[in-house]
């Protein structure tokens, strides 16, 4: 036992020492990559990386430790119908700590909050994804090599742990779509998705939404179609994607926004989203993409005086699969909203819900939904174990140090010159920025230690709103490459004097609320 421990410990020390050297030695990608034998792809198209995330992937931020889920296996023949069941669960116990201002007899000074009162609302720029959230997704599919029926069941709240009923948190049957892969030969690859599903563009992770759980370009939900065609020439691949999405219901003027209806918005009209994307890839290593989408509403049921609204998004991104040098993704996105109040929530920019969400979080109530966002962001992930073990393939069955660097910045221009009356934050001509780093050291087959640091500036010119989060973690799992993890996490927030949080239903910023400074979390996750 002691020998095994000593071997592991010495192996770990070697990795740490070599990692430091390797990080210094890592030069330009092409210089390092030139030493490695390039894979022969002259006869075979390499389709990865892709422009968007697969609709069946969970709509959550990356898991701690650089772990990525791998999902089902398609049927290999037209005659064989195969049933597949895969999914993901995340169930966290979160406890926020704060102090009561003036405790009375029978009241403790220390108060405990669940969910924690911290600046981590998904829709806001302040969201870091540090606070684990409940999420369950069950994917069931039935199909053959050409056509597959996919149904997913989602919940963002488990009934056994809630204190009041949030019907909308039990989303139920969420995605329903056909996936069609017509056999067009080896040089052309086509996939059509038809039905109700969600697409995400600008996902910073290699196989997930990244550390922030925020697609940098847009998230498109709805019912419609999406076709992607890829072909190749020598080592180059060329991808074209297009899609049209609509919605199935629309809140009538008789509905009052409330918790049970997920704050239905009678002011939103029927909205449609049309989007096109183009990408050029090289040898399965590089994908450069261009994106355009338009979400628009022309509906006379949303109030006779409401103008037609639209949201346009223009974006470019680059994704590099650098082999032992890791994975890099960066995107530049320009969002142009015009009278977007009537655009519904089937389109989501930076996790906001439709035009109203864009107004509430970025453009301001006085903007009428008119304004622009210029967003740049990216993420770089590196496995030191894979790097130092080269040219021997790294199997993952050993100690590893996984490092992730990530950040994003958004500049907002709005016709709202007043700013947020609650917080005092301006809407127009404001730059928001957040950066972070996470390192995870897999010490044993069942134990890893991790630490993450985030800094968020909701307005880079006014540091009173800024805050930082430091989150050390212990990660337990059943094997080096197991599909489960239990994460014990402590987080401490270094809040500015005007750091604000959202409270209430619907959540609104409240400058009078003192955020929790500390959080303990015990989260269980598994995927299959």
């Amino acid at each position, binding site marked *: 036992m002691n020998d095994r421990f000593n071997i592991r410990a010495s192996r770990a020390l070697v990795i740490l020492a070599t990692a430091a050297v390797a990080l210094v030695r890592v030069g330009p990608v092409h210089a390092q990559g030139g030493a490695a034998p390039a894979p022969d792809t002259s006869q075979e198209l390499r389709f990865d990386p892709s422009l968007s995330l697969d609709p069946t992937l969970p709509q959550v931020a990356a898991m701690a430790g650089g772990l990525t889920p791998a999902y089902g296996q398609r049927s290999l023949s037209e005659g064989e*119908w195969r*049933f597949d069941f895969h999914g993901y669960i995340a169930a966290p116990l979160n406890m926020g700590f704060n102090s009561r201002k003036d405790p009375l007899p029978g009241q403790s000074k220390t108060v405990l909050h669940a969910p924690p009162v911290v600046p981590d609302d998904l829709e806001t720029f302040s969201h870091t994804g540090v606070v684990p959230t409940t999420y369950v997704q069950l994917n*069931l599919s*039935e199909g053959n090599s050409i*056509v597959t*029926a996919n*149904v997913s*069941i*989602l919940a963002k709240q488990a009934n056994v742990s809630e204190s009041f009923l949030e*019907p909308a948190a*039990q*989303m*139920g*049957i*969420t*995605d*329903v*779509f*056909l996936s069609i892969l*017509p056999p067009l030969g080896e040089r052309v690859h086509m996939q059509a998705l*038809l*039905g*109700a*599903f*969600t697409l995400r563009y600008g996902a910073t992770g290699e196989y997930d939404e990244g550390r922030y759980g925020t697609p940098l370009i847009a998230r498109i*939900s*709805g*019912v*419609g*179609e999406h076709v992607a065609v890829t072909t190749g020439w020598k080592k180059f691949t060329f991808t074209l994607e297009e899609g*049209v*999405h*609509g*919605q*199935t*219901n*629309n*809140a*009538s003027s008789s*509905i009052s926004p*409330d918790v*049970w*209806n*997920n704050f*239905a*918005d009678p002011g*939103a009209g*029927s909205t*449609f989203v049309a989007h096109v994307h183009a990408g050029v890839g090289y040898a399965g290593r590089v994908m450069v993409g261009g994106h355009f989408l338009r979400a628009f509403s*022309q*509906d*006379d*049921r949303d109030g*006779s005086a409401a*103008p*037609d609204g639209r949201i346009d998004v223009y974006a470019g991104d680059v994704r590099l699969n650098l082999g032992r040098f890791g994975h890099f993704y960066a995107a530049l996105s320009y969002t142009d909203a015009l*009278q977007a109040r009537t655009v519904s*929530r*089937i389109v989501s920019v930076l996790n906001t819900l*439709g035009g109203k969400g864009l107004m509430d979080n970025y453009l301001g109530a006085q903007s009428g939904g008119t304004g622009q966002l210029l967003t740049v962001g990216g993420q770089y992930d590196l496995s030191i174990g894979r790097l130092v073990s080269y040219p021997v393939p790294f199997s993952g069955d050993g100690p590893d140090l996984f490092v992730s660097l990530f950040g994003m910045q958004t500049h907002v221009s709005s016709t709202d010159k007043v700013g947020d009356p609650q917080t005092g934050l301006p809407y127009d001509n404001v730059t928001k920025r957040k950066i972070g780093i996470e390192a995870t050291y897999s010490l044993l087959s069942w134990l890893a230690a991790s630490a993450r640091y985030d800094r968020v500036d909701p307005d880079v010119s006014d540091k009173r709103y800024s805050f930082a989060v430091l989150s050390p973690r212990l990660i337990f799992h059943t094997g080096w490459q197991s599909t489960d993890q239990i994460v014990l996490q402590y987080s401490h927030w270094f809040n500015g004097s005007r750091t604000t949080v959202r409270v209430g239903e619907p959540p609104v910023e409240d400058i009078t609320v003192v955020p929790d400074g500390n959080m303990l979390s015990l989260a269980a996750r598994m995927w299959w």
Partner: protein
Amino acid sequence: MPFGQWTPRYTGFMSATFQGSIGQRTAPVAGQSKTVFHTPPQTLDEYASFIGTNTMPGQWVGMNFICGNGVITANLSLNTWNPTAPTTYYQIGSQLFLLSAYLELNIPAIGPLHPRLMAGYFGPFYGSLGEYSQGMYTNSLIGSPRGVGELTVIEYRLRPTLTLFLEHGIMASRNGSVPTGVVPSDGNGGANPIYPASWVHHAHLILRRTGETEVRTALHYLYNWAQDDRAQQTFDNPTTREINEAYIKDAHITVLGWDATVRNSAWGFLGAGASYIQGENAFPLRGLNTFGGEGQNLTDRWWGPSTGGTGKLIALGLNYNTSLGRMLRPAYSTDAPDVTIQAGFIMAYTLTHPSNLTGTTDPNAAVPDVFNHRLRYKFGVESVYTFCSWMAAALRADRVAPNSKDAEETFYVLAPRLIFRTNWVSRETISIIYGRWFYGPHSHGEAGSTVSGDVGMDNQLIALNVNLWW
């Protein structure tokens, strides 16, 4: 499923539709376009309504999980008519979650007798005129009891080709009585304490002859009733013309029906049926979905609010579908071009008791002669030409005459379609649909319609529907 071996199975059906209707804004101002797009569509095609024609395919997902052996199986189904991904707000009730949960006991045959039993939450359909569906139109001609209870089927083989079936069932409505104090709202799906606990008793006699031409004919009896004192309230609500909440009478619905189907491999499938529905104070009744709906729809859409749900409805229906390939070529292979034709006809006549207003305190209640002695009918034909393994073209036309007292309510629907699939015989279809409604001057939605009265009805629809079953 083999005896003694426990086997899980997963079956289902999904249909998802991108659809929107096109209309014109009456008075656009600056920043507003003249053309408007509506989802859900603002056309006269409401699900389960008489004026519905099935032109709009809609959404439906049914996932059936079955586990059992050759004798007994547990059946669960997860369903929704509105998956969450394409919605813009949470619609209570659209996620049906566990819709069915029942056991099916398949008792081994005792000589010519073969008994079967279903018990739990489920809902059988009676009066389906199509070969594998309801036919051209949605509603079952006889009815569908829904709730928790039992259904016993005894199969008796009279001759090798002749079998008699006796069915008998008792059911309670799914949710029972709503507690006093609950305020009906969208948040609770309109749950109303005036709805009493209701019950359904039904029996059926079915005769089936097998052979080259298979014939099945059946007689049906269904009785839905309530006698619950908890439903009565202290005061009448004058806004509900259908009922005096301070004096709630026992409610009854009786359905007598007949239907028959003929299946021939060459000539196709013919279904015909008729039902006689009699209601008495039926407005608050739940649990039996008749051709005209449950008690509330029967009252509001068929007999008139002031009848309180007392009246009679006679419905007749006919449905025929055939394949020209099978009809004209005896050695027809399904892997070849074909033309299929389906035609349907529905007629319904109502008799009401418009003077039956005893006890109501509503001063505005009026005699609704618009419902009494009213004839409604609709018919349609659909043809699908499959000219290659992956594509077909279809055309559907319907005429709907909802009111014999006002011919100007009559309207027509024309709907061409392109259908794509992965093979001649496949489990999925992808359809691009265009629908055009030709309304009469007085065409309108029925009571409870979701078509907005503010902006009127749209007359064009574009839809992309995908469906697959497994």
